C-alpha cells in the first residue's frame, strides 16, 4: 500500500470502532510515543550525565537523526519501523539538548582561555525594576508625607523625579518592544541566525557548525521542500475533487484536510506534543490561541478540523483558500468587508449557530508575537455568544526560533528559514472550555481567557496591544497618567471641602 493511503485506512478503521484508540497514522509516529514522557517536557536527563560527548559520538548521532527524518518517506511503514522511529525521535531530542549545552560550554571555556568576554544575552533584563507601585504611592514617598491626599493642591519640584526615573527605566528595558523580535537564547544552538554576539572561538566548533549547515541545507531542506510541495499540491487537487462530490461529503473532506496537514507538518519536522486532548474544540464553538507564526494554523489543524477565518489573498494563498472552501466551510473576508465589524460578527455568529460546521479558529492578538508573552486579545471574537475553547501553544526556541518577524522576512523566506533550522518543537495545551459569565463584558472575558492561556503556556500576560508593532500608542493612555497625577495634586481639595 502506498504511504498516503495507509494513513487514510488506519483512520477509517479507528473511526468506525468509535473508540478513543490512539491513531496509528503513518504521519503521527511521534504521537505514538507520547506515552513516554517526551524530553521536551521534562528536564533533559542526558545533559547532566554526559556533559562532553566525543566528536565521533556527535557525528554518529547526526547520522541517526538524518535517518529518522528520512524514515517516514520510505514506503511500507511497518510497526517495527514506527517503534524505531519513535525511539530515534526521543533520542534525537536528547541529542539536541546535549549538543546545545556542549556547544555553549565549549564556547565559554575557549573564551575564558583567551581571556575574552563572552556576551550572553540574559533573560533577566538590564535593570532591576522596583516593585510596581502606583503613581500616588511613589509621589507620596517622594514628598515624605504620610499616606493620604493633601488638603490643599500641592506641587513639589521633586515630583518630576518619578516621571524622570520611570521614563529612563522604560528606555533601558520596556515590556513591549522586545516582544516583536526573536527571543534571545542563553546558549548557542549552532544556527548562525541565533548567534548574536558569539564570535569565532574554536576550530572544532566551526567544523561542527559547518557540518550542521551541510546537513540542514543539503539534506533536510530539499526533503522538506519536496514534502511541502507535495502536501500543497495534494491539498489543492483533493479538496477540489471532494468539492465535486454531492453534499460535499463532510467525512471525506475531513480526512483529506487532515492528511494534507500532516504532510505539511512532516515537511517542517514539527514535533508536537498535544496535552489534554479531551478538551479539544467541538462544533459550535470558537477556538482561540496565542499567535506566534503562520505555522500555528498547521499545527492546530494537524489534530482536528477547524474553519479558518481570514482575509482573501491573491497568488498561491488565494488558490489554497479557494480550494479549501470547495470542500469545507471557511470564512474568508474581502479586504473591504474586514472593516465592517457588524458584518464580521454576523458571519461568525451564523457559522457558530450551525451545528454541522466545524469550530472556528481565531487568533485574537491579531499579529505575531514572539512567544514570550500574550498581548491584548481583541474583543470582537468574544462578543459572540458561544463557548470559547482556549489553546496555548509554546515553542521550544532551542531547535529553531519559530517567530515570524514580518518586518524582516517575507512569508516565503520565513518558511525556508523554518525548513532549514533543526526542527520545530512545540507543545499544545487544550484548556477547558470557557463561557462568558453574567455581568462580564467582552473585554473582561477576553482578559480572563488570555490569563488562562498565559498561565498554561508559561507566558507573560500583557495588557499592551500587539498592534503597537506598527502603530503608535493611543493618547488615551497618556491622558490616563496625567489624570492620575492631577488627582494627586488636587484630589485632596475636593474631598476636603
Amino acid at each position: 500500500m502506498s504511504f498516503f493511503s495507509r494513513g487514510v485506512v488506519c483512520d477509517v478503521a479507528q473511526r468506525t470502532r468509535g473508540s478513543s484508540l490512539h491513531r496509528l497514522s503513518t504521519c503521527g509516529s511521534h504521537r505514538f510515543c507520547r506515552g513516554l514522557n517526551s524530553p521536551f517536557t521534562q528536564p533533559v536527563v542526558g545533559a547532566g550525565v554526559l556533559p562532553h560527548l566525543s566528536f565521533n559520538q556527535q557525528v554518529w548521532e547526526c547520522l541517526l537523526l538524518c535517518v529518522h527524518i528520512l524514515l517516514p518517506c520510505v514506503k511500507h511503514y511497518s510497526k517495527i519501523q514506527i517503534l524505531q522511529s519513535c525511539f530515534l525521535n526521543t533520542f534525537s531530542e536528547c541529542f539536541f539538548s546535549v549538543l546545545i549545552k556542549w556547544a555553549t560550554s565549549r564556547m565559554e571555556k575557549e573564551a575564558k582561555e583567551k581571556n575574552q568576554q563572552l556576551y550572553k544575552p540574559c533573560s533577566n533584563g538590564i535593570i532591576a525594576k522596583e516593585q510596581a507601585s502606583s503613581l500616588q504611592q511613589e509621589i507620596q514617598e517622594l514628598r515624605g508625607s504620610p499616606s493620604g491626599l493633601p488638603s490643599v493642591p500641592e506641587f513639589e519640584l521633586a515630583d518630576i523625579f518619578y516621571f524622570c526615573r520611570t521614563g529612563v527605566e522604560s528606555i533601558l528595558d520596556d515590556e513591549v518592544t522586545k516582544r516583536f523580535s526573536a527571543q534571545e537564547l542563553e546558549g548557542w544552538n549552532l544556527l548562525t541566525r541565533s548567534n548574536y554576539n558569539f564570535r569565532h572561538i574554536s576550530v572544532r566548533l566551526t567544523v561542527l557548525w559547518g557540518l550542521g549547515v551541510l546537513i540542514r541545507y543539503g539534506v533536510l531542506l530539499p526533503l522538506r521542500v519536496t514534502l511541502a510541495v507535495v502536501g500543497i499540491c495534494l491539498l489543492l487537487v483533493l479538496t477540489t475533487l471532494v468539492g465535486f462530490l454531492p453534499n460535499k461529503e463532510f467525512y471525506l473532506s475531513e480526512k483529506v484536510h487532515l492528511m494534507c496537514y500532516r504532510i505539511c507538518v512532516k515537511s517542517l519536522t514539527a514535533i508536537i506534543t498535544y496535552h489534554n486532548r479531551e478538551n479539544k474544540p467541538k462544533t459550535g464553538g470558537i477556538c482561540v490561541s496565542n499567535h506566534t507564526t503562520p505555522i500555528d494554523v498547521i499545527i492546530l489543524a494537524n489534530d482536528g478540523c477547524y474553519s479558518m477565518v481570514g482575509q482573501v489573498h491573491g497568488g498561491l494563498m488565494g488558490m489554497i483558500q479557494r480550494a479549501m472552501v470547495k470542500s469545507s466551510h471557511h470564512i474568508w473576508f474581502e479586504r473591504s468587508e474586514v472593516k465592517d465589524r457588524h458584518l464580521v460578527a454576523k458571519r461568525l455568529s451564523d457559522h457558530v449557530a450551525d451545528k454541522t460546521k466545524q469550530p472556528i479558529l481565531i487568533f485574537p492578538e491579531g499579529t505575531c508575537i514572539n512567544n514570550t508573552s500574550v498581548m491584548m486579545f481583541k474583543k470582537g471574537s468574544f462578543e459572540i455568544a458561544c463557548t470559547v475553547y482556549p489553546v496555548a501553544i509554546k515553542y521550544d526556541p532551542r531547535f529553531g526560533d519559530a517567530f515570524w518577524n514580518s518586518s524582516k522576512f517575507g512569508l516565503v523566506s520565513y518558511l525556508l528559514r523554518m525548513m532549514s533550522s533543526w526542527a520545530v518543537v512545540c507543545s499544545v495545551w487544550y484548556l477547558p472550555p470557557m463561557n462568558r459569565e453574567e455581568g462580564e463584558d467582552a473585554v473582561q472575558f477576553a482578559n480572563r481567557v488570555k490569563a488562562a492561556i498565559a498561565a498554561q503556556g508559561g507566558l507573560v500576560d500583557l495588557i499592551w496591544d500587539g498592534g503597537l508593532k506598527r502603530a503608535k500608542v493611543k493618547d488615551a493612555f497618556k491622558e490616563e497618567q496625567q489624570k492620575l497625577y492631577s488627582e494627586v495634586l488636587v484630589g485632596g481639595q475636593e474631598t476636603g471641602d
Partner: protein
Amino acid sequence: LAKSCPGQETVTLYLRGVALRGRRPRPAPPSTSPPPASTSHPIKQEDNLTETRLVSHSQITRLYSRFTSLDKGENGTLSREDFQRIPELAINPLGDRIINAFFPEGEDQVNFRGFMRILAHFRPIEDNEKKSVAVSEPLNSRTNKLLFAFRLYDLDRDDKISREELLQVLRMMVGVNISDDQLGSIADRTIQEADTNGDNSISFNEFIKVLEKVDVEQKMSIRFLH
C-alpha cells in the same frame, strides 16, 4: 596614548564588529573591596571619559545590545522617532522632555557614547565613590542628578526656571484636568517658596536648596544588574 602600566591588561571586547578597548584596573586594595558593579572601565583609552568609569563591561554590552535594538534604521545612531517607539515612554507625560535630554543642542541624532552619558546619570551612588577623590565630579553625583532634573524644567538653558517654564511642565504633567487659574496659582506658590533672591524665578542653587531633604540618590537611581 597607551600608558604602559604593569598589571593592566587590555581587554578587547568585540561588539558586532565594533572594537571597544577597555583596561582592567589593578586589583583594588583589600580594605576598600568594592562591590562588583562598580568596577571601572574606561571605554577608550584615548578619550578621557571619566563618566564611563561608572559602568562595567557586561553592562556596556547589555546597553549596546539595547541601543541596537532601538536603532531601527541601523545607522549607529538613535533619532527621536526611535525613542517614541517605546510605548511606556510615549505615555509618560514628560516623555518628550526626557527624549530631548539625550540630544545635544540642535542635533537630531545621538550615538552610543551620548546615550551612555545620559544613562550614567542614573547609576546609584556607591559608598566608596563618595569617599574617593575624583578628578572631576562623576556624572551620577547628587549635584549632577539634580542638574539633569533642573534641565527638564529649564528648556531654554538660561539657568533659571521662569514662571512660564514651570507652567509648561505643569501643563504637561496634568493634561487638561486642571484649569489655567489653578495651575497658575500652584506655579506662583512654588516660586514664592523657592525663590530667595526675589527675581521671580528659580535658579539652580535655589533648586538645590528646596530639594535638600529629598533622597535624590535613591529616587533618581536605577540599579543595573551585573
